[in-house]
């Protein structure tokens, strides 16, 4: 009940004309970056972040989260109409969304996608409303070793749950920590890893990394594939929209299951992409119409979309309550909070309840605004993709570099963005995961501080990570997750020695 009262207070904060206007602007910008290839939620938020430095934190976070919702919706639009996922997390939507649109059910596919996405997001936000205070209170008991254990757990779950090679995940993560360490050391205040370059004195901003890795790298990949849009004309008919709304309750099992998967993957750093694939796979396995999947089965649109958005919104919970973001975009937003002088984590609930609950209330409103706006503006945004890529591509390049410059006003960052772009291109082509790198860059200093403070507390003995039940449990789960891939290889060798020798 205490949460409910806080939420009502939050609505009071969020429901001003200025904030609702910001939501609409944010959603529109979000749909735009979601629709454009090469620009997605993480770098859309990175590009906008420097422009919000002078804004009030509540207004700024409303703008950024609304952009996030818009980008998620925009990503599914291009998946359905063009068979081009605007976001990695909407890849699974193309499997059935595009066939549906080709069969002339574009309106139905879009409406289903938006509504189930809205439902997923709503479940995520309700989860945040119910759990956040509890998690934050629990986390107030944490001291440095516990924090380090939580960070360790977050990164271990990337290794254990990610689809990529565990070595590649570790490389990506380690590079993120190394980049974060460049510049000033937050404990001693001294400089390190600058190799005599003045440009490196102030460190490497994670925003530059996101813009390069996600934006420029993605564009290079798009160019290499030789982009061709075979779009389907979308005219959203109002009557079809209402007809589709009436069919939605039929999918209640899929909706609930997908929302649950999404929430779980959002809170643990599995992220929206893994959530949408997992949900699609499960829906296909459990459906009575298995054969319809891949050929325009509505359930195949509902499942990934619900999970995608449930994960996207519930990723905010660990960011707010623990200071551990659950997705790359949440990581960028958390970096933003720190730049605005807020300290994400349990103390935020005590120090700035207006900010926390204003944000949570704005997530309810923002998603409603997003569903309405996206239904109204789809034809407009779909027509953007008909502009030749010779114009759109370079404009996105310019926006990325201008964004990189506005982060700190340093010309050197232009080179850094270009270098990160090349790295992003190579990493994407070779299946290195990029989210761990971004997360490590944002959390690098905090994780290192937590580790060093723990070491000071224990006078250099690693046994502090086993010193009480809480920290030991967290570390054990983390170690189990990190060693998960190794264990599963060993187990499969033991159980089926013949099969593995036949393969080798």
């Amino acid at each position, binding site marked *: 009940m205490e949460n409910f009262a806080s939420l009502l207070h939050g609505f009071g904060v969020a429901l001003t004309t200025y904030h609702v206007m910001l939501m609409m602007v944010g959603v529109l910008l979000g749909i735009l970056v979601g629709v454009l290839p090469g620009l997605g939620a993480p770098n859309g938020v990175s590009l906008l972040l420097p*422009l919000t430095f002078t804004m009030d934190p509540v207004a700024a976070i409303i703008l950024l989260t609304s952009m996030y919702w818009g980008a998620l919706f925009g990503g599914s639009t291009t998946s359905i109409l063009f068979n081009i996922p605007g976001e990695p997390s909407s890849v699974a939507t193309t499997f059935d969304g595009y066939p549906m649109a080709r069969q002339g059910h574009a309106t139905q596919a879009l409406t289903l996608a938006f509504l189930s996405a809205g439902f997923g997001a709503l479940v995520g936000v309700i989860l945040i409303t119910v759990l956040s205070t509890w998690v934050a209170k629990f986390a107030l008991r944490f001291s440095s070793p516990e924090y380090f254990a939580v960070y360790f757990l977050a990164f271990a779950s990337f290794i254990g749950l990610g689809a990529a090679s565990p070595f*590649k995940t*570790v490389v990506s993560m380690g590079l993120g920590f190394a980049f974060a360490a460049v510049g000033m*050391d937050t404990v001693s205040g001294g400089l390190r890893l600058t190799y005599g370059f003045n440009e490196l004195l102030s460190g490497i901003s994670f925003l530059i990394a996101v813009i390069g890795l996600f934006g420029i790298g993605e564009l290079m990949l798009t160019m290499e594939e030789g982009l061709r849009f075979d779009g389907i004309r979308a005219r959203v008919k109002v009557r079809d929209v209402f007809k589709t709304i009436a069919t939605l309750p039929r999918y209640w099992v899929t909706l609930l299951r997908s929302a649950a998967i999404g929430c779980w993957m959002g809170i643990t750093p599995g992220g929206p992409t893994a959530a949408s694939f997992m949900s699609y796979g499960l829906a296909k396995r459990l459906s009575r119409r298995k054969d319809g999947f891949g050929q325009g089965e509505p359930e195949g649109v509902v499942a990934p979309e619900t999970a995608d958005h449930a994960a996207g919104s519930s990723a905010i919970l660990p960011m707010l309550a623990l200071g551990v973001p659950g997705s790359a975009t949440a990581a960028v937003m958390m970096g933003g909070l720190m730049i605005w002088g807020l300290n994400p984590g349990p103390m935020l609930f005590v120090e700035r309840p207006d900010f926390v609950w204003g944000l949570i209330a704005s997530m309810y409103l923002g998603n409603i605004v997003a569903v309405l706006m996206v239904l109204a503006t789809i034809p407009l945004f779909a027509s953007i993709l008909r502009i030749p890529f010779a114009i759109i*591509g*370079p404009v996105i390049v310019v926006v990325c570099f201008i964004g990189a410059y506005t982060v700190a006003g340093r010309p050197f960052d*232009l080179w850094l963005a*270009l270098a990160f772009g090349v790295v992003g291109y190579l990493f994407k082509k070779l299946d290195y995961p990029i989210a761990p790198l971004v997360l490590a860059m944002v959390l690098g200093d905090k994780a290192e501080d937590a580790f060093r403070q723990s070491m000071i507390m224990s006078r250099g003995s690693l046994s502090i990570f086993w010193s009480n039940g809480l920290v030991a449990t967290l570390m054990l789960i983390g170690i189990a997750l990190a060693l998960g891939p190794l264990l599963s290889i060993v187990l499969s060798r033991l159980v089926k020695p013949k099969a593995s020798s036949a393969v080798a």
Partner: protein
Amino acid sequence: MISRYTAEVGTATLTAGLGLAAVVGALEFGIGWGDAGPEPGAFPFYIGLLVVAASVGTLIQATVGRRGLQSVFLHREEAKRVASFFLPMLAFVVVARLLGLYVATALYLSFVMWVQGKYRFVIAVASGIAAAVIFYFVLEVAFQVPLLKGPLEAALGLY
């Protein structure tokens, strides 16, 4: 034509090099126990070691599974497309450093539209300049965010 195996080995070598750079850089700041707990170099040192180890792991994986990695990483046609995108972008960054972001934007957009988009020269140049002017008004006037400027802006007195 580059095979996937070559690309894997090249990238893993690059990441191992970066890890090694972190290790070497960290040694300079002490990796042991100082007056205030672990010295500043300790954390980057072990992270660097971890990156090197994981890169070596990737290298071994690639070498062991070499037969499975003979697929083509980059075709000649694809390489051409990437280069035709990357080189103008590289030129854009160089020009931006010398002449400022606005001039570079106008030049870059005009060039790409004219040469790669096959638009008429006049239209391409007009669009490029128009885009630069729009960026100027959105950033400097509306958001009051200053961008990198060069001699042209100085001559026009736009500081």
